[in-house]
């Protein structure tokens, strides 16, 4: 299975860039004497004293380059298999294990990602395109380069709705526990893939994210998926995001001039 196949749509964008790159210096970044960002300094804080998660974030480059050389974009292990760090892998229910096996055997032709559909909040952390967190009073927004998607996390104290309209990004509320932003989400639709292997998330899924900015340049995210319909027990993985300074999001539209679809065929 070639990763190039999985990410064919993702990599195209790099070839199209001809004009000026976005390189405006980010404001408020501590710098060393030579002007480089000092990413090991303390995390910044908002006026109300909470850690400020604002910034542009990249995936952790934790996957060795394939034998053919590195791709333009670094695909983290979690992009391929969200449970790669868990002993014994993800605790799939039997039907979920069967569907993952089927999706992989079919070369992932039914992957929503390959059909330019939204990828949901878990893959939004693992997709090798940047994301920008914007923290405002009462609301944290994450803007995604991929498909100009966004996600809202309400931090104004509201509860999760009891019967939300099912959606790809779900409904999210957050509150601070010390320096950790704890986000609860539900209201997902059936058919979401959590990784390229096709690990499912169903309408019964609930996700908890515990986000900590451990220093200026690093976010640590503890992600717990509780979806009894698809998994025999809740499971937790740790994701790391690295700050990208002095750049910004670009346009990325999967559906514009899309040529991959007809080439996606099962074996």
């Amino acid at each position, binding site marked *: 299975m070639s990763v190039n196949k999985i990410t064919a749509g993702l990599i195209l964008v790099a070839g199209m860039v001809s004009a000026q790159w976005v390189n405006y210096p980010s404001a408020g970044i501590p710098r060393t004497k030579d002007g480089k960002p000092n990413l090991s300094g303390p995390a910044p804080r908002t006026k109300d004293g909470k850690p400020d998660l604002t910034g542009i974030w990249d995936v952790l480059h934790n996957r060795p380059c394939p034998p053919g050389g590195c791709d333009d974009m670094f695909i983290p292990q979690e992009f391929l298999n969200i449970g790669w760090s868990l002993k014994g892998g993800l605790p799939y229910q039997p039907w979920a294990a069967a569907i993952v096996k089927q999706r992989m055997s079919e070369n992932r032709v039914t992957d929503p990602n390959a059909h330019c559909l939204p990828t949901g909040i878990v893959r939004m952390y693992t997709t090798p395109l940047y994301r920008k967190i914007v923290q405002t009073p009462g609301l944290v*927004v994450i803007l995604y380069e991929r498909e*100009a998607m966004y996600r809202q996390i309400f931090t104004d104290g509201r509860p999760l709705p009891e019967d939300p309209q099912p*959606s790809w990004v779900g409904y999210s509320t957050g509150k601070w526990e010390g320096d950790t932003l704890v986000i609860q989400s539900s209201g997902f639709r059936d058919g979401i893939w959590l990784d390229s292997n096709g690990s499912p998330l169903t309408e019964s899924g609930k996700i908890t994210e515990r986000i900590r900015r451990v220093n200026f340049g690093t976010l640590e995210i503890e992600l717990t998926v509780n979806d009894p319909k698809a998994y025999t027990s809740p499971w937790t993985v740790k994701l790391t995001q690295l700050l990208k300074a002095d750049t910004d999001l670009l346009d990325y539209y999967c559906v514009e001039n899309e040529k991959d679809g007809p080439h996606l065929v099962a074996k």
Partner: protein
Amino acid sequence: MLSAMIAGAQWVDFPTPGVPRLADGKPNLTAPAPKTADGKPDLSGVWTTKAGYIGNIARDLKPGELSFQPWASELYKHRVETQGKEDPQAYCVLSGVPREHVVPYPFKILNSPGMIVILYEALHSYRQIFMDGRKLPKDPNPTWMGYSVGHWEGDTLVVNSSGFVDNNWLDNSGHPGTEAMKLTERFHRRDYGHIDLAITIDDPKAYTKPWTVNLEFNATPDTDLIEYVCDENEKDLKHLVGK
């Protein structure tokens, strides 16, 4: 409009905090415009554009105010005659600026330090307007949303944008926009319930002179954006046949 029909579950009806209300609890839309901590008008909130401009963003212009370059006139004629068959939005490519201002779906304006963000329900997209004093880049990567910088002139937010794609549609009838397009948008929150917006389109490649349209946004409290995914279960495309 489909979204209205498939809403089986709970609608998003959380009361918006900070809304001035009448005695009966309804939002008081003629109350004064709110201000941010630095004393500037606060444009944040969920808004819906005044209906009627998606078909033709220039509908209120008097004859002669909009003057095409010859090739742009031909292109516009072609787009109207072929009934929007080539409209990028029909292929689920997002609307871009300034078309997002006339699309009849709600959008949300957010303030953050140094930046205003607009989240759009339609086609699920967003736009960043940098308020940190930076200049427009000289040779930006062309995008549907363009590159935008804003500043305050009194109580009016003035946003300058450039860096647009070359095959822009400014509305459903297909008024063209090119890479040469520069936009000036002047946002004024007249009262709690209304923003007046004047957009000046200066695109010498497509038009012989700049032209200005005036739009109005209506505050849409006590609700929120819902998810809009154009290319999911998409059934329209094969019916777009022109004439």
